[in-house]
């Protein structure tokens, strides 16, 4: 299916958020996630099913003021 990952389309085979993150190279990364604007905590990634066209945001620590 096609996801909108951080604003750009990505083809993935995985069915859940956990699978998609692993496939996209985020394994072992310290990141937080949201699907369609809602926060998805780490403990719920494996049970969070993804659908065609879902907007997935993956963020990491960054400099800030």
């Amino acid at each position, binding site marked *: 299916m096609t996801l909108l990952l*951080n*604003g750009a389309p990505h083809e993935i085979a995985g069915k859940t958020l956990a699978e998609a993150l692993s496939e*996209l*190279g*985020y394994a072992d*990364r*310290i*990141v*937080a*996630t*949201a699907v369609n*604007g*809602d*926060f998805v*905590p*780490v403990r719920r990634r494996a049970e969070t099913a993804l659908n065609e066209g879902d907007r997935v*945001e*993956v*963020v*990491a*620590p*960054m*400099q*800030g*003021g």
Partner: protein
Amino acid sequence: MASFYGFEPTNPLFLGTARYPSPAILAEAVKRSGAEVVTVSLRRESGGEGAGQAFWGLIRELGVKVLPNTAGCHTVKEAVTTAQMAREVFGTDWIKLEVIGEDDTLQPDVVGLIEAARILSDDGFQVFPYTTEDIVVAGRLVDAGCEVLMPWGAPIGSGRGLNNPYGLRTLRRHFPGIPLVVDAGIGLPSHAAQAMELGYDGILLNTAVARAGDPVAMAEAFALAIRAGRLAFEAQPIEARDMAAPSTPVMGKAFLA
């Protein structure tokens, strides 16, 4: 020293981590400033690069507390979701809550700010709201659960100092028991000293240090100014007056006319 949700820093400088010439200079500036808290943020990360992981490693090595922000959020929903993500990534209930209402001045949307502050406080967050010097808004934020208030000095990154010293002074007088931090708009150490002389409990700044010609030296200059301002406040400054008052005693002066 004031207590920020139970944390009592010796040095009440909250230092931002953005816009430094290099990570090494950032690290050196934090050390030289003596800051015990730094602000951090969240941004999109691709699977390949890992820039955020390196930054987070650097901050953890510094051994300081982090205050994540919701910079760039324009709606309650965005700010709340960002705060939730920050809590998980940074492992802290602290959140510097920004809900921006207007892009020219980056002025807080105080209506959205109050709503987001209530949602987050109810969810166990310890909220540091970036607000204006408006006393009524400040009261609503306290009602919403905020135990710290962070009024702006001037628009973010402007370096203009305290645009409304009267407003900041009245806010201080009105909320004698709430820790107050001037957040944003500070350009010079003298601005920070001025805020501390008014009885403020801390200063949050970023650009004034990060974009200085020598950020490390400027970090130390701010630390000194904040300490001087606090000492001056505790020493109870004299009231300003319109006319001169001779400091040298007049009595006993020789009559030589």
